[in-house]
């Protein structure tokens, strides 16, 4: 694994963080990632992140769910073993509705949930690359990959924009 050095700016206010991101980016530095203790609204406009496509995944899984439910019920009660229950029809579409709905929700939720885990590399037992442990507590963190050239620039940018602390971390 290649060793990369990161400069880490810690901020204690979300608005100052947004300003900090702007300043770092305006000065031509590439931000590796931003870590925040809670979702910061408006962050995606400053540190450009494409819109998540997870809803599309949810829709596709939902379609899969409704199809599976329909095929299952049709196969069981209509095709494989048509049961005569009180003389009711063997292909009761109206009776299918509740389960069609439930499986749409079930597949959409779990399909999207699993996609979410995979997209975020959330796997049991994985060791996360934690830039600063206070990023899950009370610090907003900007991480910029640095080398000998831009190290000074980045750290002074952090300080100017109001970072309460600047650190380095080699991962």
């Amino acid at each position: 694994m290649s060793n990369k050095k990161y400069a880490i700016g810690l901020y204690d206010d979300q608005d100052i963080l947004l300003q900090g991101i702007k300043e770092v980016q305006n000065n031509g530095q590439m931000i590796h990632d931003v870590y925040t203790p809670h979702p910061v609204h408006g962050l995606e406009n400053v540190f450009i992140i494409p819109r998540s496509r997870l809803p599309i995944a949810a829709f596709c899984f939902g379609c899969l769910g409704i199809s599976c439910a329909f095929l299952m019920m049709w196969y069981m009660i209509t095709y494989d073993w048509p049961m005569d229950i009180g003389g009711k029809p063997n292909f009761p579409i109206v009776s299918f509705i509740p389960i069609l709905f439930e499986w749409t929700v079930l597949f959409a939720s779990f399909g999207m949930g699993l996609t979410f885990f995979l997209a975020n590399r959330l796997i049991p037992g994985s060791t996360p690359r934690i830039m600063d442990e206070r990023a899950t507590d009370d610090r907003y963190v900007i991480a910029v990959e640095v080398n000998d050239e831009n190290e000074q620039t980045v750290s002074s940018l952090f300080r100017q924009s109001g970072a309460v602390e600047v650190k380095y971390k080699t991962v």
Partner: protein
Amino acid sequence: MHESIIRKPLVTGTPDMHTITEDVCRPLENPPSKAWWIGFSLAFAGFVLWLVSFGYTTWVGLGVWGLNKTVGWAWDITNFVWWVGIGHAGTLISAVLLLFRQNWRNSINRSAEAMTIFAVICAATYIIAHMGRPWLAYWAFPLPNQFGSLWVNFNSPLIWDVFAISTYFSVSCLFWFIGLLPDIATVRDRATGTRKQVYSFLSLGWTSSARSWIRFETVSLVLSGLSTPLVLSVHTIVSFDFATSVIPGWHTTIFPPYFVAGAIFSGFAMVQTLLLVARKVLKLEDYITIYHIELMNIVILVTGSIVGVAYLTELFMAWYSGVEYEQYAFLNRVSGPYWWAYWTMMTCNVISPQMMWVKKLRTSIIFTFIISIVVNIGMWFERFVIIVTSLHRDYLPSSWAMFYPTKVDVSLFIGSIGLFFTLFLLFIRFLPSVAMAEVKLLLKHSSEEAKSKLKKHNHVAEPTVEGGKVIIATTATIKKGESNEQ
């Protein structure tokens, strides 16, 4: 995001983000208090009682219950519906209130969702128990004929219920777990040794990076959108168990909305019962404020009124239908041998929530606590009245009978409450009981501190950042023509 200073603060006191972490993590990082041990011992004793009575039922057979050939469905289904109903408030708080952007949900959603999951587990115990032969529980699943029974009957609301409850349970667990990830990561980053390893495993390696938060919020929103119709469908389908039959008193089209409203009503009451104790014992008064309690009481008032209207509508429709059987079923409810159950239900569910119109009462902690218990008793009686009074006098007067619960019935019920509280107490001991990240989100704009700062500066505009410092504009600067968004 800017919030009007007129709105009441959602976080009182002067906590900063670190204080929130400390306050929420305290019960997890320190040995439990005496109160916790006492509560846990009682709850666990209840759970043991459940194990014994469940084991006895399974060993001897369903004959140990108070059922007879007229009342073939009573205690177990009452408790099943009661528990499932209680569960609904959790999903309402976590999903529906998220869709409606009710930020006050942020500090109560975690424990409410936990309550949902545990309540559904308790409900499931009754499904398993009432089968009599729980080892054949898999017959309820759509398995090939070779497994012992025929394919399940998809015309039956009971099989819809199997799908609805299992979907509801698993989706609630998923929603809860995804919401827990950032907070488990917070606990992980503070822990050492074995605890760190355990929480590290549970956090799945959450890093709180900007991208993961975007996905997190997207997933939460879509899951809410999916859970909202889901929670409505679940109690609708539970009501179909009754409404699609031809028993007078059950065969009514009002059941689905009436059951859903009743479920939310009883669920919020249970949330109040739990949170009023939890906020005190865990010292979370700054996050679960009187304002939260008041808002939940308003939900109780609204849903309680819907339930009240439904009761009266039922009576009216029974009379208006002109059907003798239907009319008798309701006359029997009101004035038959179970009149006391009916009037307990009416008093607890229709009259008591109406007191919430008085602001002094709905902001009183003791009064809220009493009403929350009263409502839960009332909602238990509602199910008992619907189920038992509709069955015990059937079409043939010679087979009219009464239902009396046996000791095993009562033990199973008390035991399920023990199971519920055992799980809940373990939850507040080992997992963060308030969604820390979501409360931190509110801190900047909705806390008492932020609002009083704004008020002090006689200020109406958004703070700006200049030279690494947050500048709060005063009226003077706004006059100069700066932004004046509200």
